[in-house]
């Protein structure tokens, strides 16, 4: 399996998510479709043009589709790429966050009391 540096779908999705404005837009779209103007209203400090550009990035990543017929072309959240990212995050964030929590507890135990026997898994 060859790793295509940076251009696999997941990397594109991550790139699109790597911006707080775009994440806020997605959170808003998870509540329902919205027009560019409605999205722009969330960001008083950002121009409508800039919001429109952000929307294009989300569109390219397949995270958003735009209505065709309506003049306003409301943006619609497309969840498939998010499911991919989520599945990945599920695997690794849960695993490492959980492990590192337990490592912290282990280190505290080590320094406070003798190491429990290795055959006695935590929580049993």
């Amino acid at each position, binding site marked *: *399996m060859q*790793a*295509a*540096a*940076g251009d*696999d*779908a*997941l*990397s594109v999705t*991550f790139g699109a*998510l790597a911006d*707080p404005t775009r*994440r*806020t837009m*997605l*959170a808003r779209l*998870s509540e329902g479709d919205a027009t560019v103007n409605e999205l722009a209203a969330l960001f008083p400090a950002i121009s409508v043009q800039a919001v429109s550009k952000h929307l294009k990035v989300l569109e390219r990543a397949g995270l958003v589709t735009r209505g065709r017929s309506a003049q306003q072309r409301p943006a619609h959240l497309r*969840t*498939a790429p*998010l*499911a*991919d*990212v*989520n*599945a*990945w*995050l*599920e*695997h*690794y*964030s*849960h*695993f*490492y*966050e*959980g*492990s*590192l*929590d*337990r*490592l*912290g*507890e*282990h*280190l*505290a135990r*080590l*320094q406070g009391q003798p*190491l*429990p026997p*290795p*055959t006695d*898994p*935590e*929580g049993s």
Partner: protein
Amino acid sequence: MVELEFVRTYAAPRQLVWDAWTDPDQIAQWWGPRGITTPRESIELDLRPGGRMAFEMVDDATGIRYPNSGTILEVEPPARLVWSDDGFPDGGGKGTATVTFTEVDASTTTLTVHLLADFSETVRAGAEQGWGTQLDKLVEYLAAVQA
């Protein structure tokens, strides 16, 4: 390729954190999130460049075993450990993990886990199996990232 990084600071001397990470007796005490046990007898760790590492994680609730294996690439006690992960049986998740142990002071250590992995195969396989969207969780996560 996708990158992910976890950083934690522990109130423990660097050598202690290194030992916890590299001694199989200790790894069995903490490796895996809650609800997952890594039995001591499943852990194999040949701590030198080219050495093999392998272990099995067991889901306490279901008893399902998740084997994992890889190769040690770099060992610089007590500062840095790099290994390659063979990935999942479906061929995805192959990648490299770099763990850095930084001494803040004599009794404080910052641990950085840097993961570089290829998940395109996993994602493809998962999509074919019809993974749920679990959007609520993701929105929650995104909110946490922004906080």
